[in-house]
């Protein structure tokens, strides 16, 4: 019996899953199935990260994309779609634009991928892949400005990144905070206008009911026995 290289097996498995799920995102009509296929594609990419030994990056992919972004996306989909199991139709113009942009991106990515040296001379297949190397402490130290992978370089020009990434990190987090506060402000003004404009006729739609938490707070304070709508 031929020896099985599990690394290759799982690589092909995850790669096929990622490609297949990505194709399903494009081809599915149902928007929730699309979101689900996107979860599968992003999860398969996380699997590829694990296979490459980048455990921290894989966990990050799971946390940020598969967990966080998907929840946001599904929330958005559910709050904007008009009927359950809502199907999306795209016109010919969308298709053409998507194909052009996708082809351009694919060309760039293929050029970058094929330019790598490892592609020209793949390692011998019977050689077992390296074990999972811990990368977390290196990433943490690099954030603080100690690039452990570049310590041996005598040339200071090559020691790029020794200044650390704390400042960009802080700038990005302050950026996000500003965006969050802005979003909150916009949402609250809109709701206040809606509350003064139209009364209870919109309270039967799903988005209104989901705002039970804040929308009915003053009401609840006056009359603690009242039940929130939708229950």
């Amino acid at each position, binding site marked *: 019996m031929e020896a099985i290289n599990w690394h290759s097996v799982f690589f092909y498995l995850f790669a096929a899953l990622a490609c297949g799920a990505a194709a399903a995102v494009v081809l599915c009509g149902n928007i929730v199935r699309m979101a689900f296929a996107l979860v599968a594609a992003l999860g398969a990419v996380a699997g590829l990260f694990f296979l490459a030994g980048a455990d921290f990056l894989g966990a*990050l992919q799971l946390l940020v994309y598969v967990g966080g972004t998907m929840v946001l996306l599904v929330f958005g989909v559910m709050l904007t779609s008009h009927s359950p199991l809502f199907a999306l139709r795209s016109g010919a113009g969308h298709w053409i634009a998507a194909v052009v942009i996708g082809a351009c991106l694919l060309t760039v990515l293929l050029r970058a991928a094929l330019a790598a040296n490892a592609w020209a001379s793949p390692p011998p297949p019977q050689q077992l892949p390296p074990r999972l190397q811990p990368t977390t402490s290196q990433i943490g130290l690099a954030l603080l400005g100690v690039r452990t992978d570049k310590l041996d370089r005598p040339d200071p020009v090559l020691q790029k990144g020794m200044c650390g990434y704390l400042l960009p990190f802080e700038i990005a987090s302050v950026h996000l905070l500003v965006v969050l506060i802005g979003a909150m402000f916009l949402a609250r003004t809109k709701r206040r206008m809606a509350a003064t404009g139209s009364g209870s006729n919109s309270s039967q739609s799903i988005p209104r009911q989901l705002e039970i938490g804040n929308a009915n707070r003053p009401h609840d304070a006056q009359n603690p026995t009242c039940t929130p709508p939708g229950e």
Partner: protein
Amino acid sequence: MADHLANWFHPSLDWLAYTIAGAAGAALLLVVALMVAAVSMWLERKISARIQDRLGPTRVGGRYGWLQPLADGLKVLGKEDIIPAQADKLLFRAAPYLAYAAAFCTYMVLPFSGRWVALPLDSAVFMFLAVASLEVPAIILAGYASGSKYSLFGAMREAAQVVSYEIPLALCVVIPVMLAGTLSLSEIAEQQRGWLTSWLVFRNPFVCGAFFVFGICALAHTNRAPFDLPEAESELVAGFMTEYSGFRWVVFFMAEYAAMFAICGLGAILFLGGWNGPIPLTDLLGLRYDAGPLAGWLGDALGAINFIFKCFLGITCMIWMRWTLPRLRIDQVMSLCLKYCIPLATLMLAGCMLWQYAMPGGVVHTVGNAGHSHSPVAECTQHRPHAQRRLSNPLSGPGAPENSSLRQQPRLLLEATSVLLRGN
């Protein structure tokens, strides 16, 4: 384990050794997860009955109804399998298994004892939180695919609740990580080796407070009462599980119990010493790997029993709370998270940081050395001149013998900051 097995086989059969090792590990973990679910179900029924002044299961399997979960399982398997006409059938079928997979995959990085861990990852804590958060998409899927209002409501509540409570939960988890200086769960537990006092929860008052907040967030994260809004039967029939029946319904339940055990395990490792008991029995008996493989194995087995006991203690507390406290309203749940848990967790984090900065060696050490220490950071580096060397070669990080001693690891971050601040 794979390497041991590989030694037994011919080199050309290495792949078979790895296959067997992987399959055996996965099967063992699955058995653990299923047994945990069964025992927790029995515990839940028994404890709830006692709290309500009933007897609970008494018929199947002896006087205490040990085999009740088995009987329940058989009964549930015989139920009709219903898929509503309005449902998206593929997603409806897939959702319970996804939820269970998310709960089960956290066991992958959860160490049960010193060497009893499926995947000794360096970033285990992070991986645990990442995988645990994957339950949300599965439950949203269940709620949406059911094509029912109640299911959708339950799913949205669940999503809002779990996503909100992840923030204070992660903040609480950061505190032991900061004290231990590592993200590896095994390493964090190993640093708490010794008597009760070496547990991180007794390190300083802020960690104790963080453990309290962690407990609340763990309850909310696993949707246990008083935070079981997503399946509030008085309002939403059964929340996202309304349309499920038979086997798929029970898979959701097993996912819930598996997640409960996992989060209790995380709490036990981060705050309660993991497998290092109140009394260091394995050390007193000399059951370590230095004394031979059998002694080490026995020590690990004792440690695993200790760890599982702590997890079940946590589960018992969760059950106790469920049958004692009334359910909160959704706005109360949200305001508890945003107005109390997050500020408290942040306060604990900041307080713990300051405490650690003022007394890096603990209260006794700092007070004892108060006469001849100028500044904490200077003291820190003075006491260990090799700090600089270690920083210049951090590749010898966790796992290297010089770092594995008890008190050294927590200060690595402090030193790194101090060295950087001096512009080195």
